[in-house]
């Protein structure tokens, strides 16, 4: 018989060698993708998502426009090869529609849609690989892509999944852990400390909820640092590229060498 994988062993390590509160490696690529106005590829461990943002632009269907604000249209696509077992999900799949509507309702209050009446912002999410924390990756990717597209937002939205194994809380779950422990996804707005989303599909004891909720909020702030530094890096690279043509000043902050 194959032995059961321990979610958290006696030494305090998880199945992939992480500690309880350790997040997986995050990589963020804000390079341009195709014709999109802003895009981001974000990976949390083995979960990888590409988000492309188009707009604000004229809506394809006039009926979709709202007279006093922009309409956010979210479209989620899951690559057939993304999960461990191949599965072609059609567009009307309930799971996909649910992720799309969650993203939409999370970002509607954060994006300053009132600045763009009668227009549409298209968010196309493509899931390239999934290993747990799909919703959190989609949310973080969408935040970055919206920022990259220059769409005004009130704040970042940073999401983390938390779970509870017997009584010990865990952060940033993999598929293996998600299948086994009750988990909750929390999205926070780090500047104001407001919570943009809390979602839970499994049962969790009410006594445990507060702890994991607080931890996920703190982890969100850590992610915010990562995301912010990626955005700053991308922006300063763009500024450098522009500055090197216009002015002759060194943009990296070095004093020009005095040869006289």
């Amino acid at each position, binding site marked *: 018989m194959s032995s059961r994988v321990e979610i958290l062993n006696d030494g305090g390590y998880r199945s992939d060698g992480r500690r309880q509160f350790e997040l997986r490696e995050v990589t963020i690529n804000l*390079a*341009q*993708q*195709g*014709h*999109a106005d802003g*895009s981001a590829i974000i990976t949390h461990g*083995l979960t990888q998502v*590409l988000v*492309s943002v*188009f707009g604000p632009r004229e809506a*394809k269907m006039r009926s979709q426009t709202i007279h006093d604000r922009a309409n956010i249209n979210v*479209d989620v*696509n899951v*690559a*057939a*090869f*993304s*999960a*461990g*077992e*191949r599965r*072609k999900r059609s*567009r009307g799949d309930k799971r996909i529609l649910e992720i799309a509507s969650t993203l939409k309702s999370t970002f509607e209050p954060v994006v300053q849609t009132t600045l763009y009446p009668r227009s549409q912002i*298209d968010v*196309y999410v*493509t899931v*390239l*690989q999934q*290993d747990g924390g799909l919703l959190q990756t989609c949310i973080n990717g969408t935040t970055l892509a919206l920022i990259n597209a220059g769409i005004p937002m009130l704040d970042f939205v940073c999401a983390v999944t938390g779970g509870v194994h017997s009584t010990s809380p865990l952060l940033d779950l993999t598929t293996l852990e998600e299948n086994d422990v009750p988990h909750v996804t929390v999205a926070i707005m780090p500047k104001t400390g407001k919570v943009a989303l809390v979602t839970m599909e499994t049962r969790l004891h009410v006594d445990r909820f507060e702890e994991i909720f607080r931890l996920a909020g703190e982890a969100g702030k850590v992610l915010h640092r990562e995301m912010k530094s990626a955005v700053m890096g991308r922006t300063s690279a763009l500024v450098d*590229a522009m500055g090197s043509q216009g002015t002759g000043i060194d943009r990296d902050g070095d004093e020009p060498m005095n040869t006289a």
Partner: protein
Amino acid sequence: MSTVLLSKAEKSYITAGLKQNPPQRADGRHLTDFRLISLETGIADLANGSSRISIGRNVNDNGGGTEIFAATKLEVESISVAETSEGREGGRLAINVSCSPAAYPHLTQITLEDYQHDLTAILHATLSHSSLHPNNLSIIPGKKSWLLHLDLLILSDAGNIHDALFLAARAALWDTKVPKTRSVEYKAPKSNITGSGANEASDMDVDTAATSGFSTRTHLTHATDFELPDYWDEGEVLNGRDRWPVCVTLNLVPPIHFLDATPQEEAAVPRRLLLMFSFPPSSSSHEPTLQAMRTLGTGELSLAQIKDLIQIGQKHALDLYTALNVKLKDEDVRRTLKAQERFASARR
């Protein structure tokens, strides 16, 4: 399907430039020059083989260009006589092309699905042909075989999508590793049967080796199931992976043709000839086989023209094939080295 809309004046400007002597293209390329192609294999950890290709990506910010992800996944399929499953002796291939709506933001959902279907049809018909079928997709003859799913995902289209799809498909199939399997069979404990049989039949004087007509157990001398002996090993490559074809798209503005069209050029020149060549290693690369051919767009071509174009296309395909093979071998080395280094550092 063009991603841009051009006015008549723009179209004639582009075609006039192409017909000039020497021909002029907007990006200064020669008629038979490709844009920069970059390729990476092994990009999806959960797939059996994968590749990512981009044509004409801006080297400064990685933006623009045609971009495709391709990944293969192997699935065990049982072969049944009852036709309930589609499993076939020797395994089969299922190829699917899907487009991200971000690649074609101006298309509606329905048009996008039609387009996906068109592309899938071209790839599936070419790649799943029996002449290219790898012969190591069988697990247990007559019982189980591998179903090879090849999924291609178009992330952005900046022209020359067919060539890019075939390049990505070839790279992903090249990269595919079929897990090694070992057949397992059930053998009735023979000594036991014969032993007890001998005791009972000692008075009756019958052949003890003969088994009961009702016992089906001893008939199962062939394999019934399989196991994966090496969990850590990635397996072996697909047989005949040299044969996977490459595609060249000849964009036709009689009397000339050009390669690797940009979206603007595609919109101006709708007539194209797709040629898929396979270069079997046995026949010394001079004798490629034309696996498929397809014309797109309106207009007519005479047989003599087609004959010439096939000759020309073969030359271009050979160039592309050679370049791609160099890169694929390079990637193989890169990834094995990387794996070895990782292994060595882990042992330290």
